[in-house]
């Protein structure tokens, strides 16, 4: 399974969380598939930001509005509370200033939806414990010295992180995404151990 299949899996959950007609800002929107889906299927007003020229061009072809933005420089221009939902999907771990990015999300949006890989997953723990090496797997296929993922977190750490930055978690959906290709399954027990991905709905505290 590729990373983009993983994305598709957790994005399906994001679309379920967003009510019809919402104003949505998608941070790291890629080629705009989530935005297009929210616009076409749920009548949402959507805006996106991304860095990649290829992705911005693809999104333009879908009639989407995407502003090339380095998230670490904040969400300048957007007025406070100008969106109902701000989505940050599989991107928290690549920014240099995750706390600043979260505060910006909570400034411009009523709610944020954050999806992230759970570094507390048993495979990751096992890899480090048994091999004594930084985990490399299908979902984290990078060596430690050459990786875009510079801020890994666990589900438990993420809870503290949200609270420490003026937010509150309204809903948390731990997921197993990797067992069968494309299949997603919520996890009810020991989420920080058994879920490889989490989707969190956050708001200002």
């Amino acid at each position, binding site marked *: 399974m590729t990373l983009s299949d993983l994305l598709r899996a957790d994005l399906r959950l994001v679309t379920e969380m967003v009510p019809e007609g919402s104003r949505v800002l998608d941070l790291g929107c890629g080629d705009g598939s989530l935005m297009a889906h929210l616009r076409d299927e749920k009548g949402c007003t959507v805006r996106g930001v991304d860095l990649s020229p290829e992705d911005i061009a693809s999104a*333009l072809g879908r*009639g989407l*509005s995407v502003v090339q933005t380095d998230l670490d420089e904040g969400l300048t221009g957007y007025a406070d509370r100008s969106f109902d939902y701000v989505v940050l999907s599989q991107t928290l771990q690549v920014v240099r200033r995750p706390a600043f990015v979260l505060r910006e999300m909570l400034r411009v949006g009523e709610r944020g939806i954050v999806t992230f890989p759970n570094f507390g997953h048993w495979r990751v723990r096992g890899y480090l414990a048994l091999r004594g090496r930084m985990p490399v797997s299908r979902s984290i296929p990078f060596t430690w010295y050459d990786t875009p993922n510079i801020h890994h977190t666990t589900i438990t750490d993420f809870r503290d992180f949200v609270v420490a930055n003026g937010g509150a978690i309204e809903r948390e959906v731990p997921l197993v995404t990797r067992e069968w290709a494309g299949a997603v399954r919520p996890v009810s027990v020991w989420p920080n151990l058994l879920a490889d991905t989490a989707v969190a709905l956050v708001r200002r505290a």
Partner: protein
Amino acid sequence: MEAEHRAGGSPAAPTIAPPASGPQVFELAGGLDLASGRRLEHVTIAYETFGELDQRRANAILVCHALSGDAHVAAGPDRFGEQRPGWWDPMVGPGKAIDTEKYFVICSNVLGGCSGTTGPGSADPATNAPYGLRFPLVTVEDMVDAQAALLDHLGIERLACVAGGSMGGMQALAWARRYPERVASVAGIATTWRLAAQAIAFNEVGRTAILGDPTFSGGDYYDEGQPSHGLAVARMIGHITYLSDDSMREKFGRRLRERAGHAFEFVTEFEVESYLAYQGRKFVERFDANTYLYMTKAMDYFDLSAGHETLAAALAGVRSRLLVLSFSSDWLFPTYQARELVDALKAAGAEVSFAEIESPYGHDAFLLEPEQQRRYLEPFLARVVAEECKRGGGER
């Protein structure tokens, strides 16, 4: 051989280039009220069109030219009937980013220009002599009003897009604010919502060179020949601002022209000197010094936020989808200004997209980087025109 194919209408015939209108002229009968409060009774607008307007009139794209441009944006016959490439040839034409096989492209010489549209070199109907400096100052908004009158004449109610670079981008932005219902989209490239002090300063140096030329004669030089030296100096300064340190270093370095060592005389020695001298000379042959004064003044005056406390407030009525592109090495229309514009559009809730294109070519990049612009412009335009067709734009 090719002519035979065409005449026979054979399906194997080579693709026939979409029609280019060649130079056209529109007489604006009703005159034009200007931002200055003055009025021009007689206005002629020179324009050209490329490609064909579709039945729904949903595929019209207006391209606005920059300081020294004209109506001849793409390849086609010039006023002498000769095929000549356009000033934005890499971007506009069959199969190009602004595809004249799909879109109906209109480009007109701006008000105040010197390539067919009424400007300071035109005859003042009151005296039958050229206006010179008696020509009223025109603004970017005045230019746009003249273009709107031209579109009325062409029967185009609504444009799929207004696109332009530099001063052309200013016009495109002015369209979005001034005629929000008439423009589905705007592409503003290497442009700004208002010049900062640095750009105004360069314009003023250019104007000072022209005004100080002894042959300027208060702008009434049309019988004696124009102030070539002043205009050439203005153009040389302009060209420096269109390049970048990197591109000049790469293009010229410290290379000497046709000599091994220094001449120890005040002659053209360095390649860069020769380039600037050539650009100055070439410009004087085709451009009017008074128009240069009027164009730079119009750019200096342009302020998209005019009349409002903030730019975002001024843009509250914008209904067009916008694409803003800047170039990393453009220090005349820098990325930070494009971002100010984009931030204000975001705050106004507008549908705006933005990208900064990596390029070493400075401000000139909008003329020299067709592929990088095409990457964004092509899908943007395709989608807008498809939506306009569904919308039944013009619905005739």
